[in-house]
């Protein structure tokens, strides 16, 4: 089983990127994380991830696109 699920939603029209990443989250298995690629920073997604119990880390790539790593939040 792959540990990383890639969701490449660069240059798709809203809300397709969010639809794709939410569908991927539904299928996420224990131990897996999502690598989400997008042409803009997906601010509306962050509140949803928080409410759904996921943590995220965002990096800007050299070409100006964004990479968002999403994984289940570890309970303290």
């Amino acid at each position, binding site marked *: 089983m792959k540990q990383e699920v890639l969701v490449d939603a660069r*240059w*798709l*029209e*809203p*809300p397709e990127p*969010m*639809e794709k990443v*939410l*569908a991927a*989250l*539904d299928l996420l298995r224990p131990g897996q994380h999502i690598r989400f690629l997008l*042409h*803009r*920073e997906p*601010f*509306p997604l*962050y*509140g*949803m*991830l928080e*409410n*759904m119990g996921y943590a995220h880390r965002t990096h800007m790539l050299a070409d100006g696109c964004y990479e968002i790593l999403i994984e289940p939040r570890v309970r303290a």
Partner: protein
Amino acid sequence: MSRHGLAYEQAPPFGVPLLFMLVAPAFLFAAGVLAMLPHWTADLLAPRTVALTHLLTLGFLGLVMLGALTQMLPVVGGVPVPGAVWVGRIAWAGLTLGTPLLAWGMDAMHTGALRLAGGWIALTLCPYLAAGALALARARSIDTVRGMRLAVAALPVVVLLGLGLVAWLRGDWQPADPLRWLERHAIAGLAGWIGMLVMATAWQVVPMLQVTPPYPPRLTRALAWGLGVSLAWALLAPSPWQRIGHAGIGVGLVAFALVTLDVLRRRRRKTPDVTLDYWRVAMICLIAACLLFLTGGPHTPRLLAGVLFLLGFAVSVTHGMLGKIVPFLAWFHLQSRRNGRGAGLPTMKDFLPDGAARRQFRLHVASLACLSGAPFLPALAMPGGALLAASAFVLALNLVRAARLYRSHGGGF
């Protein structure tokens, strides 16, 4: 709140902007019915022309813009509008009740109705303007917010000048040159409020919703400052500075239109999209309107410039924005209510199917073509007005369909 992004959780319930947007097409419909009578084609300042103008500017555009701002301000500025639900409802009541009375007062030249409607609209806009100004003062300073500040600052100027003109019509005030005041009222309203707000909004929504490259930051900075300074000069007494102000407004708006056409051409996804067509029509009409305004001339080109600016530019952009923003917000609010577990929810295309959106666009463009020709051939007023009313009716049907679908999936207002 995010540092520099879109803070949706700060936005008011979907019902707040939707209330404005559902009622707005009634004013576009009324403008279409009034435009069927050819009296407005004779003169820019004929009572019917002025009434028609206000049905479009205050009724249709005003409602959509004030409604959209309640959602846009928190989203792009990162701060909520204080009391958005209540100040929104008061402003909504102000425009919904005041605009028909104002338009009737203008058409019938009934100065009592004008004073009552003008006072009511001014009073009911005060809480909204105060709340909007407070939110804008607290918002992070990006070019879109700077542009919105200018637009919101222009609105009270428009209202005060409008109240002054009502006082002049009633004989309570005798300015030396009332037409100069009328010109200032029009410039502050068309360039300051409508032009600036559309421009500032476009800098955010065009790259986001049309998937284009961003506007060049140096251009948006120059336009935000340049248009503000030009507007201030244009409102001065007749002088070389005032003429420079007029030229600055025209050049700034043309530059915005040309760059918008360029970023739309360079969009990443080349699939057909009716909202893109609205933007293209709008920008071409804006360029034509500005060129007619800058070159001046007798009444007929000025009337054509007005039709191109209001119907061709502002109403086209509004159709285009509603076609994207309403389905997107409906979809997003449903997703948020289900915490992102929205399997089985309608897609954006379900909220506004392509066929319905395309019908609305064809009617709008046909009405624009007829009404642009009406100043030269008044017989075109009848079909143009009927087509405009039909486009408003189809817009209303499309918005009601989206609202019903939203509600049927558990969406709240």
